[in-house]
């Protein structure tokens, strides 16, 4: 008995140390600084409300949430369809296709932003093609559309891999049973495949949402004109030196992302962990 208890304590102590010293303290500090003195000399919890009352912060929050929701929705549709298809079909070139679809995983946000500029920037491919076709110069890299494109680029591979992982484990007998009962291919997808993948969708979608909420590198590379929340926090912190406001905004951003992840974990169970 002794050796087992000793063993458990040896494992527990580092975990507890790490948690308190490292994970909780910074978060609690953030919380306090958010309510502490700002450069205006004022202290108070009003800063947390400012996210809702001050036009600039509110619009940044709203546009960040909307952008993240849109990215999540489109990613789930594209990643979900491709994932199910790739998991359930074997064909020549499948390996290469999967490799191509997943290599954005290797590129950091800065590089993704960079790619978006090359694709949709002023001297980008789309601009050149649109001019060559005699139209207007089509430029959307530096807007929300560019950000949307960039976020899709790094979100789809994650969703694709998660969905593929679950779809490959899907019991083929379920589909055969549904077919024997007269269900055509669309009914099989609707009644059997989608419900089976729902937890994976919830998990992948929540991670995708949280990642989009906090993505910074891409936004920063594309330009400072886009007021998404991580950019605003950065500006408050470095340009305005308003540490308190930056802290309050960080807490609110963390809160929203955390809520989504927690909701997903409630519904999707442990698969969120696997996708984390």
């Amino acid at each position, binding site marked *: 008995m002794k050796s087992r208890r000793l063993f458990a304590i040896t494992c527990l102590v580092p975990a507890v140390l790490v948690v308190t010293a490292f994970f909780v303290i910074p978060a609690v500090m953030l919380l306090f600084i958010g309510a502490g003195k700002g450069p205006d000399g004022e202290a108070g919890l009003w800063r947390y409300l400012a996210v809702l009352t001050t036009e600039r912060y509110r619009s940044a929050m709203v546009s960040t949430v909307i952008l993240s929701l849109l990215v999540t929705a489109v990613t789930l549709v594209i990643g979900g369809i491709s994932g199910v298809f790739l998991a359930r079909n074997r064909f020549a070139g499948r390996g290469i296709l999967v490799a191509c679809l997943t290599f954005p995983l290797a590129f950091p946000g800065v590089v993704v932003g960079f790619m978006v500029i090359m694709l949709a920037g002023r001297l980008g491919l789309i601009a050149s093609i649109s001019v060559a076709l005699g139209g207007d110069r089509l430029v959307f890299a530096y807007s929300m559309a560019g950000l949307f494109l960039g976020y899709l680029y790094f979100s789809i591979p994650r969703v694709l891999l998660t969905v593929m992982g679950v779809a490959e484990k899907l019991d083929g*007998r*379920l589909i055969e*049973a*549904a*077919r*024997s009962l*007269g269900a*055509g291919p669309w009914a099989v997808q609707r009644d059997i495949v989608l*419900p*089976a993948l729902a937890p994976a969708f919830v998990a992948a979608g929540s991670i995708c949402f949280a990642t989009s909420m906090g993505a910074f590198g891409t936004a920063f590379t594309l330009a400072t004109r886009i007021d998404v929340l991580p950019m605003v926090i950065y500006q408050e912190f470095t340009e305005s030196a308003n540490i308190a406001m930056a802290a309050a905004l960080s807490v609110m951003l963390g809160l929203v992302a955390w809520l989504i992840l927690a909701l997903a974990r409630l519904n999707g169970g442990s698969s969120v962990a696997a996708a984390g």
Partner: protein
Amino acid sequence: MTAGVSIELKGIAKTYAGGVQALKPTDLAVARGETLVFLGPSGCGKTTCLRLIAGLEMPDPNGSLSFDGEDVTRTEIEDRNVGMVFQSYALFPNMSVAENIGYGLKVRKIAPAERDRRVREMLALCGIEALSERAIDQLSGGQRQRVALARAVAIRPRVLLLDEPLTALDAALRERLRGELDQLLRSLGITSIYVTHDQAEAMALGDRIVVMRQGAIAQIGAPRDIYFRPASRFVAEFVGAANVLSGEVRDGSLHLEGGKLALAGTGVGHDRSLMVMLRPESIRLIAPDQAVWRGRISAVSFLGDRQRVTVTGAAAQPVTVEPGNDLELAIGDLVGLDPAPGSLVVIPKETDSA
């Protein structure tokens, strides 16, 4: 309830990508309302055969499959109207018991009122009314089996296909459900194809049994035919315990290590050597001085309703005998072996010897 259809397979074969021939060209006719059992070891082609009839696999070109004369060789499974019960049951985890049973009716766009009525009918038929609203993961193995069966029967299929539906259950439950299943299949009168590797199941359920081996049919017949008149050593050993004995024929008797067996009435020609089969339960143990065939007991195993006795010295291999549970036997005893009249079966010579 449903009369079912007759099924005819003509030259149906299946070769998988890679050249493995899972089923050699096979002809087979199943009568309307018959319960036909495919029996064989794993990899013998029995499941492939079932899946071809179901439409889950497409046969090689040139074969044809028909239901009541209608060619369905290239019809997709969803248009064949067949009921399937899988070994793993394959119940939809996102639906309740009633929704599972009603799914085939819902897909067929049958009105909700009629659908409810037929689901209730099925629940009653399978004795699971109380489970109607349960989730699948709250069911025991036996309950799942009943739901799977109800779901397959609910669509009033032309053929009911059962792929080892009892294998996942433990012995006692398997035996009980086997009885229930037998009664249900008989009361429905539906044409059924049943796949199993369990000979007791095949015997109890099948009007006819198709014993399969290495992608081909080894023997077709009623359970008693298969058990008492096996066409080969493989069938003899697969459908029950069998003592297969080889010896020399002299003076109308088969001479073995421990004595001789009279061959009268087995219709043997003038072969010099012979292979015969004796079932363990057809050999009586008698006093050695009254016997012409003797051996010594090397193992006794009490099985409850009977005993399993291994006798050495009687033949080249040990002979297994299964006497009743009332006999007192001890290891080392010398015993006489007395086969019941007509229990000796001559096994035709063949090239294979498994």
